[in-house]
């Protein structure tokens, strides 16, 4: 073990030196390396930069903080996942069948799989995970009330029976949404406060080694990994770097091998990548990342639909795409993101319905009873988290609304305070946030529009509560896959009419990785917010 670590160290040191002092020669070296026989060799370490500010818990059954999700890909695994074309790919479930009535799901599990501590994995673990972590898992809120029974008729079979059909069920067993947890570790203990939440035991290619506060989290090769001989790398170290610019600096300077740039940073990252030691990988099918404006319908004039429409007309979304997202986003077309190819209906298109048209906006406001008086129509408070890209979006919106005669007061807040103000106190007129849509409208889209009486954070803060719509949404969720698209068209039409939330942009996602790793194509073969788990990548001997 000790010697192995020494080797890692040597690798990384060399790596640092190479990229530090000889960017050009490292390019040559990597070009040379392309020529080797392409056979993976073990050894080496990858240092991945993570934002450390929100990792209180590594157990992603209980948290959906992004850095924890990045880390979970390394140590945890699940029943299935998606390839880059968004096709489902089996993981620990070799196959699955769905009953005719759509109520019974049967998963056939892989055999001989062991947890990272060497204990055997069985269907009982899956049942245990669903029964015990389901209540903590925010994605399963739709599913859990529908569960009739979860059982393990034998070690290799996981059986799920629902009270009524939910078409998105399979998507809820994606390895990122539903990482499997070891029964033998958690059973009989207080799950919420279990130490394994920060020193996890899982089925992923690497296992938890150590966590140095504020500095790094280290994972080493899991000797029991079911996809042997993967992983090839000895270890994955997550460097904890809260500031996005510093993450970029660190990869430029060769201190880390991977990070995910913020969209606003991508051009700069691409620019820096031209110097040679790393490249920027666009994710082919990323989870929808939609910047939205929520209106507080409890307040006048936001409760006037004409005002909302006018405000939508007043926003030049192309400008936001260009300036804030540096062209790496598209305007959002309707409530259902375009990534959901089978569900998105192009007939509802905000680009045409709510084209940038200040005159029309002014006219609508006049009609709504807010004519210009002394150059002003009314005042509103736009609440936003004080961080990129929200603040830039807010400034563009502010400029454009101000041009219309609206006195926009910007409140840029710490995330905690913003959450409190918007979702708990409802003390805002309009608010800007970016929402992740994941793999299905049930996961992350519905929340913006369905009635949210309990003031759950990050779900519909607008007080929009339309029984007609809620019914459409429920029907859409339970409809058989081939009929869903029609339901979601109605869904999008209602929202396009009522506009409790303005969808501004849908941005793309990029990751940056140093060039010396091999097999990166397989590494980045994923969709919907799943991340590289470093099981595929390897380092040639001369780079280790």
């Amino acid at each position: 073990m000790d010697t192995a670590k020494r080797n890692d160290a040597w690798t990384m040191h060399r790596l640092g030196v190479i990229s530090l002092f000889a960017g050009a020669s490292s390019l040559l070296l990597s070009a040379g390396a392309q020529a080797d026989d392409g056979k993976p060799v073990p050894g080496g370490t990858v240092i991945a930069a993570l934002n450390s500010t929100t990792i209180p818990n590594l157990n992603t059954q209980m948290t959906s903080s992004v850095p924890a999700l990045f880390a979970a890909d390394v140590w945890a695994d699940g029943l299935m996942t998606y390839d880059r074309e968004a096709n489902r790919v089996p993981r620990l479930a070799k196959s699955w069948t769905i009953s005719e009535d759509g109520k019974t799901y049967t998963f056939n599990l892989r055999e001989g799989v062991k947890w990272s501590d060497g204990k055997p994995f069985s269907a009982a673990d899956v049942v245990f995970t669903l029964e015990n972590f389901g209540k903590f898992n925010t994605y399963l809120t739709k599913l859990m009330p529908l569960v009739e029974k979860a059982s393990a008729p034998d070690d290799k079979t996981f059986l799920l029976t629902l009270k009524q059909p939910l078409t998105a069920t399979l998507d809820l067993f994606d390895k990122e949404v539903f990482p499997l947890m070891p029964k033998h570790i958690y059973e009989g203990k207080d799950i919420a406060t279990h130490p394994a939440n920060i020193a996890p035991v899982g089925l992923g290619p690497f296992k938890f080694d150590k966590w140095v506060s504020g500095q790094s989290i280290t994972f080493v090769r899991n000797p029991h990994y079911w996809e042997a001989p993967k992983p090839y790398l000895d270890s994955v170290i997550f460097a904890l770097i809260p500031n996005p610019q510093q993450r970029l600096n660190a990869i430029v300077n060769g201190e880390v091998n991977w990070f995910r740039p913020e969209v606003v940073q991508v051009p700069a990252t691409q620019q820096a990548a031209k110097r040679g030691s790393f490249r920027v990988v666009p994710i082919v099918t990323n989870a929808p990342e939609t910047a939205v404006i929520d209106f507080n319908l409890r307040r006048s004039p936001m409760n006037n639909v004409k005002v909302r429409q006018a405000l939508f007309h007043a926003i030049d979304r192309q400008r936001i795409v260009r300036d804030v997202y540096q062209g790496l986003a598209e305007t959002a077309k309707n409530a259902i993101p375009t990534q959901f190819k089978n569900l998105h209906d192009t007939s509802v298109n905000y680009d045409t319905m709510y084209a940038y048209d200040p005159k029309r906006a002014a006219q609508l406001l006049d009609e709504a009873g807010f004519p210009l008086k002394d150059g002003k129509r009314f005042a509103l408070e736009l609440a936003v988290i004080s961080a990129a890209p929200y603040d830039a979006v807010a400034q563009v919106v502010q400029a454009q609304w101000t041009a219309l005669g609206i006195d926009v007061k910007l409140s840029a807040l710490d995330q905690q305070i913003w959450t409190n103000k918007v979702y708990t106190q409802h003390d805002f007129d309009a608010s800007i946030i970016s929402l992740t849509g994941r793999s299905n409208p049930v996961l992350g889209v519905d929340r913006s529009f369905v009635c949210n009486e309990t003031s759950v954070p990050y779900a519909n803060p607008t007080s929009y509560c339309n029984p007609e719509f809620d019914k459409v949404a429920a029907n859409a969720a339970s409809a058989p896959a081939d009929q869903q698209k029609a339901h979601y068209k109605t869904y999008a039409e209602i929202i396009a009419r009522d506009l409790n939330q303005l969808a501004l942009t849908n941005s793309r996602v990029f990751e940056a990785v140093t060039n010396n790793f091999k097999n990166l194509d397989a590494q980045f073969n994923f969709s919907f917010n799943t991340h590289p788990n470093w099981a595929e990548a390897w380092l040639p001997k001369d780079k280790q």
Partner: protein
Amino acid sequence: MSDSKTATAPASGNGIPVGSWQAHIANLFGTRHGALGAGILIVLVIVATAAPLIAPYNPLEQTQLSLAPPSSQFLFGTDNIGRDVFSLVVYGSRSSLLVGLGAALAALLIGGTLGILAGYFQGPVEAALMRLVELFQTLPVIILVLCAVALFGSNFWLLIAAVALAIWPMEARLVYGQYIKLRDREFIAAARVADLSTAHIMFREILPNAIQPIIVQVALDASIAILIEAGLGFLGLSDPSKVSWGRLLFVAQDYMDSAWWMSLFPGAAICITVVGLNLFADGLNEVIDPRSTSGMGGLQ
């Protein structure tokens, strides 16, 4: 022999008494850095008040060019959302100067009042007040400000109040020190012997004598306040509705490498303002206490 013959009345030629304000201002401009500092401040004040006349664009206006480098059209280039950096810097002088002076004056008000009270009254009042000062000095400035801003949100006026809260102990100590120094002076005893009121003694007798180093400290505090404001802006805690240099630096972080002009000009503006305030304070100090510059002569 009449002593009017031996009188060496050191009145300056034009009849302005040496210790008077007019004379101080005249002397301030006589010192090189005092003049430079005052000059910088005057220019800044002019820029701040005449911002709409000087700035070619409305600071919130988006031009068609984002991230444009400095050119004749955009002297300092444009930022990520196409605003003219020159106009932003010009308008930013308003909030930065306001934060600086506002916080320094507010600190003077709080610290000064407590310092006067502590300095004039002896015994328990003095002890209690100085303990309070100590309490606030023991807490790191930035923690107080972070908490305050986190508590009430990034409101511009709150920011001023928070910065003032952070620096008032310095003022309190200074004012207190001045009062301690002066309360044993004979003219204070003379005023007491003449049965003049406590308020009279505090504000008419002591204050005018204590005010000069306090003014110097206000100028220094203003420079500290501007630096603190910049730091808060850098942490993303400044008011986004107000254009300020700190906030510009905060936004510019992500573009340091690609759009240097976004951070260079606001950064330089902060620097120049801080230098100006310090030069002004140094100049003022020199006028008040000429000894502070005549040091080199000490060693031949």
